[in-house]
């Protein structure tokens, strides 16, 4: 296979992401105040409003798809040739990158999966979607995950003085003496909604269906997992509410004409429903693109 990049349009997925339980995406504390919060959430430095960084959402989706791929390695080897060289597990034990295990790249003391070059990434479900920065050649991400800012409704609530972050006091208790050791965690209150936008670039017309399904699968996995910190203690359950998925054909960028946009009505559909009705919903995109 030769190295090549094509452009066949973009799928723009928009909607809301709701914090079903308190959400904590951490930031560092600027100045220590007495009685202040130990663990603040990340906020826009200009407006002071909490948001979900695109990097957090994208990183979480990637990690979930990596773990799924690691579990399905044998099953998926037929379909994704790039997985052939990997066996399940982490190179951590060996302490050496690309030892043959799936989690093959070291970032300080963490190990994640990144294909080492363009060819492997092109044939890997994770790297061809999320990108790979290899030693020899990069594979640029086909996915853009934008910062998710508060919806207009929640911005208004904040302007009207409603608290949208809470200081939750948690306590560690000595098992023998029962001495309490309290700490305060800041979190975005349950119910808060953010606007999300995810853009997928259709490069290879034989990949788009699979890539988008993998993306939706990662989103479904995220709904049953958590975003941000302290997830095992109930923080960070999120749910996606879709508004619109539109396919902007390559022609749209040339002409700017509305008729070169195909709109897929996914309002009120859950991730799972979109996945199960995928072929029906995306039939227009399929015929616009010609191949699978």
């Amino acid at each position, binding site marked *: 296979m030769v190295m090549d990049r094509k*452009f066949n349009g*973009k799928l*723009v997925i928009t909607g809301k992401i709701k914090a079903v339980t308190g959400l904590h995406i*951490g*930031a*560092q504390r600027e100045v220590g105040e007495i009685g202040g919060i130990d663990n603040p959430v*990340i906020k*826009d*430095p*200009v*407006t002071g409003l909490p948001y979900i*960084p*695109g*990097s957090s959402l*994208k*990183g979480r989706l990637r*990690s979930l798809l*990596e*773990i799924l791929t*690691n579990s399905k390695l044998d099953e998926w080897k037929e379909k994704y040739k790039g997985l052939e060289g990997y066996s399940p*597990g*982490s190179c*951590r034990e060996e302490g050496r990158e690309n030892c043959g295990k799936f*989690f093959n790249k070291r*970032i*300080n*003391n*963490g*190990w*994640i*999966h990144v294909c080492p070059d363009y060819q492997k990434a092109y044939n890997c479900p994770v790297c061809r979607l*999320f*990108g790979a920065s290899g030693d020899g050649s990069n594979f*640029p*991400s086909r*996915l*853009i*995950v*934008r*910062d998710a800012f508060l919806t207009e409704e929640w911005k208004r609530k904040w302007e009207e003085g409603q608290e949208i972050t809470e200081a939750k006091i948690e306590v560690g208790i000595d098992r023998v003496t029962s001495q309490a050791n309290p700490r305060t965690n800041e979190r975005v209150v349950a119910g808060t909604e953010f606007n999300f*936008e995810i*853009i997928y*670039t259709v490069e290879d017309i034989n990949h788009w269906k699979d890539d988008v399904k993998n993306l939706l699968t990662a989103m479904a996995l995220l709904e049953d997992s958590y975003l941000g910190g302290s997830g095992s203690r109930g923080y960070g359950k999120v749910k996606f509410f879709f508004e619109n998925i539109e396919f*902007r054909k*390559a022609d*749209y*960028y*040339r*002409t*700017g004409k509305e008729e070169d946009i195909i709109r897929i009505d996914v309002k009120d559909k859950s991730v799972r429903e979109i996945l199960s009705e995928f072929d029906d919903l995306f039939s227009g995109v399929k015929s616009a693109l010609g191949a699978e």
Partner: protein
Amino acid sequence: MKFKAIKLKLKGPLTEIPHADTLFGAMATAVGVLYGKEAIDEFAERFQRGARISSAFPYEGEKLFLPKPLSAEYWLSTLPEEKIKGIPNFKRLKGAKYIPLGEFEKALRLEQFTYGELPFKRVELPKVALDRVTSSSALYFWEEIRFKPNTGIYFLYQGDGETLKGYILPALRYLADTGIGGKGTWGYGLFDIEVEDVEISVPGGEAFVTLSNTLPSEAPLLWRLFRKGGWSPWGRKPKLSFIEEGSIIGNDPGKIETLTVGGKGIYVYGLSFPLPAKLPEGLP
């Protein structure tokens, strides 16, 4: 003088406010994606023939910011002590990189001007990579520029309507959904487009302030140099010496440099964007 101001209403942060060569490079790449490689040569040719873009500068609502001309900076440094005392926040004025359009017009004429609050902040953010098995964290820091709501960046365009409609706007439509500058995959540099007319009142004069980072073809009059490289789709670009926006030049069109990177030819935009400016005394 009349120009088109092309506003990029930002939907997220930027890693850097793009210079003219970055804008040109991003647009040329987009033109290549949309119309094929030959179209890139035609695009560059149109600039050789007279179309011009400035670097990007911040805006807030209707308020456009422009780089402080070095002529005005030089003029400030020659003012007598008692006059300086009468200027509020003189130090901040001296250090200001951008000033609002109205003040810029005064500065071109070497009249008393002020600065304005900028609509963005440069911040350092913590980011983390997590081990997929053990969740051990690897923390790192990342610098970026965050903008206030209803603000963004814009650049000026001077030239024929055909280049604007046939090349620049399609390229920007593509970039709007792709991102301009670094870290597009985290949603940096996504925007909506708005085109406006803008008029800048300029004095007469033989000297010019350039609003793009320029590769001069003759010696400039007052300048600040910076070295800039960056990446092309085929590898790292060698560093070139540009003069900064706000530098003062004679009648110098600048140039577009052609380089070979990874066996492929690329264009580096270094044309000037000249506006007439009054020269302070003591300069030729």
